[in-house]
Structure formats: C-alpha cells, structure tokens
C-alpha cells in the first residue's frame, strides 16, 4: 500500500521543573492511503503528543522535538515554517479534537467556521463555499442543514457539535484526518453515531485516518491497523485482527484481559495490570513495561528490546519474541 504519512524515530520532550519529561521516545509508524490507523495507549503514553507533533500544534516551549522526521506526501513536516504549516493544516491534514464544546469558537456561526477554510485554502467565493459547507453538514447527518448553517455552536448538542467538527475538518477534502479521542467526551449512543459518520466519510472521500483513543472497543470497530503505545514507545503494531486475536506484547494482552466484555456471560474476575506507568522524567533503562509485566525476565530490566517482526504487519517489541526466551520457557 502506498503510504501517505511516515513517522520516523520521533523523540519529543517537555521541560518541567526538575528535569525533562521524555514523552515520545523513538516512535516509528506509517499510514497508508485510505487506511484507518488507531494509536492506542493510556494517558501519558505519548499518543496525543505524537498526533500534535504531526500537526505541529504542540506548544514549544515547553515541548521540544528532539529528533525524527514526519514525512507527509514526501515532505518532512518538521522542517516546514509556521507559514507553510498553516497552508497544510486544514487543507491537507484535518484534525478533530476530544471536546466538541471547546474546539468550536462559540462567538462565530457554524457556517462561517466551515467556510473559513474553504475560502482560505481553495479560493472559493463565499457563495461557493456556502454550497459546499451546507453539503458537508448534510453529509455528516445534520438535518435542516441550510438553517443550521446560520446557528451558533451553543445551539447544537454535544454529538451534533462533533459532527460539525468533522464537517469542518473534512471540508477541504484533506488526505489525512487526525482524530484525537473524538468520542471520549460523548455518551455511548452518540459515540456509535459519530463512528458511523466517520466511517461513512472515509468511504466517500478515501481519507486516511489516524485515530487516537484509549477505548479498545472503538478501535475494534474502526481501525484497519493498530499501534499500541506505552511510556512513549510503540510496543506493538498489527492489523486489528492480529492485535485483538493474537496479541503478542504482554501489555496489549494485559489491556485486553483487564476489560470486561459485555457479550460474555461468564463472570471471570478481571485481570488487572498491576502498578502504574513509569514517570518519564526518569524512564527505565530496560523495557518500560518490565516493572508491571508478569513475564518479566532478567534481561528486560537491563535492555530495551528491539522490534521483532512476526509478519509483514505484526511487530512486537518484547524479549519474549527472542528465540532464547522461548527455549528457556519451554525447558
């Protein structure tokens, strides 16, 4: 598959008093054309920082991009000027955020917020932009779009606002959409609708989507591929099937085991992952998950493992994949 975005060895740090929080520590991944990739991880795993770095929306200071490349359509976004980035944001890469309440400007009519990008990036007249904007609102499932076009954000419910956000993000037909926890602030019934809208839009426009979330259920329903992040590192990647049906990294397995499933009748006790993630002001030398891992071996505490490729799509970064580990365990 042709790739549209490639993140190479990305390192991002934040300076805080008393040191530097190494939030992203060597992240690599690619996103193919028309593909939905989910980045899963807990708070502090670096997933949102990664997304914001791609968009160059991360405030600096306190953050600092230490090294790495973000290749989008063959060009490194990290070497662009702010002016160049402005032309890319909204036009080639769209973004939707977690909180639809705060990501829309409350003092500007919804219609104006949709057309703004169209006028800026595509040099449309207001009339043309309005036609496109109304059409977008209809596409994301807002009834009575002509009338709603002239309303303010507070006249929309939370789910409707998130639809508007999607309409704004996709108005210029960007080739990549970054959705940062797009359903976290919404109720489950609304969440289901928003996911449907996103899938529908992707089919229509062929947009690639990077979906940042902590909700594995949402991932299972949407993603083609999954990137699991922990403590600033990618610990496992694979297709949805590989990650959910054949997880290899103990962290991924732990996450799946700690979730109760609504469709299971048997009430087995949950298996939690003990402990808490490491403080990235002082990341551990070895595997960051070693302190919480029930398979931890001596080597894990000393050396951070390299990625092991189990198939073309499946990668796990764990010492258990080392041939010697399997020998020792089975003996």
């Amino acid at each position, binding site marked *: 598959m042709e790739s549209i975005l490639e993140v190479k060895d990305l390192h991002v740090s934040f300076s805080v008093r008393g040191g530097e929080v190494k939030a992203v520590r060597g992240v690599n991944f690619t996103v193919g054309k028309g593909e939905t990739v989910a980045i899963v991880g807990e708070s502090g795993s670096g997933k949102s920082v990664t997304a914001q770095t791609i968009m160059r929306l991360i405030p600096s200071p306190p953050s600092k991009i230490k090294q790495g490349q973000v290749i989008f359509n063959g060009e490194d976004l990290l070497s662009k000027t702010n002016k160049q980035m402005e032309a890319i944001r909204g036009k080639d890469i769209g973004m939707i955020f977690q909180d639809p309440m705060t990501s829309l400007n409350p003092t500007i009519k919804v219609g104006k917020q949709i057309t703004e990008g169209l006028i800026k990036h595509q040099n449309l007249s207001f009339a043309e932009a309005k036609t496109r904007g109304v059409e977008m609102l209809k596409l994301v499932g807002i009834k009575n779009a002509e009338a709603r076009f002239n309303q303010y954000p507070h006249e929309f419910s939370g789910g409707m606002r998130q639809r508007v956000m999607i309409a704004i993000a996709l108005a210029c037909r960007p080739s990549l959409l970054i959705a940062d926890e797009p359903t976290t602030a919404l109720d489950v019934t609304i969440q289901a609708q928003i996911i449907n809208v996103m899938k529908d839009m992707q089919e229509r426009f062929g947009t690639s989507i990077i979906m940042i979330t902590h909700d594995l259920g949402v991932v299972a329903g949407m993603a083609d591929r999954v990137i699991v992040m922990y403590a600033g590192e990618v610990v496992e990647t694979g297709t949805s099937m590989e990650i959910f049906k054949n997880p290899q990294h103990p962290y991924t397995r732990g996450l799946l085991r700690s979730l109760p499933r609504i469709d299971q009748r048997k009430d087995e006790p949950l298996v939690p992952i003990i402990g808490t993630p490491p403080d990235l002001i002082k990341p551990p030398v070895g595997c960051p998950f070693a*302190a919480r891992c029930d*398979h931890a071996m001596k080597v894990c505490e000393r050396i951070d493992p390299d990625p092991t490729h189990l198939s073309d799509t499946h990668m796990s970064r764990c010492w258990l994949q080392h041939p010697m580990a399997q020998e020792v365990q089975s003996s």
Partner: protein
Amino acid sequence: MSVKNELIPQASAANLTPEDFRQIGVDEKQSEVIQRESLSAWRDSWERLRSNKLAMAGLIVMALVVIMAFIGPMISKFDYQTNDLMNTNKPPNSVHWFGTDDLGRDMFVRTWMGARISLVVGLAAALIDVMIGVIYGGIMGYFGGRVDEIMNKFAEILYSIPYLLVTILLLVVFEPSLGTIILALTITGWINMSWIVRGEIMQLKNREYVLASRSMGAGSGRLLFRHLLPNAMGPIIVTLTLSVPNAIFSEAFLSYLGLGVQEPVASLGSMISSSLSGWMLYPWRMLFPALLISLTMLAFNIFGDGLRDALDPKLKK
C-alpha cells in the same frame, strides 16, 4: 547458575545468555514508588515564585523600602520636624543627602518618614480590607441564596457611591488623622475583596472534596476554615498585595489635596504637594518622594503579578 554479565544496554549488539531469560517476579510495591520529590502546594508555589526573577526583584525592592522606612530616619542625625531656617531649599549634599525643604528640614529623613506613613496606611488599609472582605465575601459565597442576594445588593450600593465623595466627607467631618485616612480608605475598599472571596468560595464549594467532607458529616466551620478558605488563599493574597499600592496611592492623593496627614508629619503625597510651588527651582524636593512612591507601587505590582502566576493552582502537573 551464576553467569556474570557485563553487557552494554544495546539490544541488537547484546550478547545474551539463557540466564538473561529467566523469569523474575514483579514487585508490586516497587512500581508504586513515587519518583519525584515531595512538594506541598505552598512549597510548589514558592519554588515557582523564586524562579521568577522580576517578581523577586519586586520583593527585594519592597523589602528595602520597608527596611529603610523604619531605619532610614534613625541613621541620619536630623529629625523630621526641626526647622533650620538658615538652610532652606538646599540641594542634596554630604550633610543633607536628599537636600532640605523650604523650612530647612532634612529631606532624607522626611522622605523615609513619609514612606513609613504611606506603608502604614497602605498595609493597614489592605489588612482591614482583607478581614472584612473575607468574612463578608465568605458568608455570601458559602450561604448563597437569599443571604447572598441581600448582602450583595448592599455591597453594590456602597460601591456605587463615589469613594472620593465619601472620603472627603469623612475627612471634613472628622479630624484628618492617620486613623481617619485608613477608615476612609477601607470604607469601600473591602468590597472588591469580598467579591473575589465570594466568587472563589462559590466555585470551591461545589468541588468534590468539599462534597466528600460534607458526606462525612463535616460542619460549616470545618468546611470554611479547613477546605474553602485555605484553597481561596491564593487569590486573597494576590488581591491583598495589589491593594497595598492602591491604598498608598490613594493616601498620597488625599495628602496631595491637603486632606491627608497634617504638618509637621510628612507623607509622600503631602511632600510632593508642598514642593509644587518651587519645583522648577528645587526639583529634588519633588524628585525623591515621587521616585520613592513610584518605585514602591511598581515593586508591589510586579510582585503581586508574580504571586498570581505562582499561586495559580495548576497542580495537575
């Protein structure tokens, strides 16, 4: 099995042995240990304040002014009220460091005496504002509803009367003295503070930790004094710091109008006022008090601003 390993922590280059792959147990308590050093909310704020150079400069200037206001008059051999008609309007020299005024009084001593009066008025007025404002605003915010409505109306009415009018009236009716000035400044000065406290308390009382304390059976006293006021302390301190220069300026202004402290007692405002008649000829008589009052106000304002940043409770990281 005791294999010695001296490997560099580089996964690909590592020379691994089966021993490395022996499972170890997880130590649950180990992963719960907190890495960072312990900091209380107050210490955290102090550290932040200390790293703010401008605010610290403000603090140092404030401290110097306060110290000089109290020891300044003592290190000079002159006093503030003895006339010396042989030495009137002398420019600064080695005897009279800041020169003398039209009655030959030493300007150095008078300037610091004036600063002392200004500081006393400013601090006293601000402290009284805090006391009334915290109690009044605390009651409004905590009880809310009808109590709040009535008390707030009263405060609004009082606030709508021009304070200069009240002040001048007061100073005309009563003898102008330090006490009267402080009274005049506080009669409406506390209102602002009470509104700030009211807003804070209203916001804080819906916090879950207050609810938690209520769910355990805590009474009003505990809620107010253990939970609400300590957490409202940041804005209170900032407002206090910023209201000191206001009071100092108001006092100077009143003295300038001749409504402040009376001769021979000096205040920065009255000194500037009396220097006006000859300021082209004797600029030092205006320069020193004016400089000092500006410096003091600037220092308090800068420090107050720094304090606001430092106390902003973003403790979530």
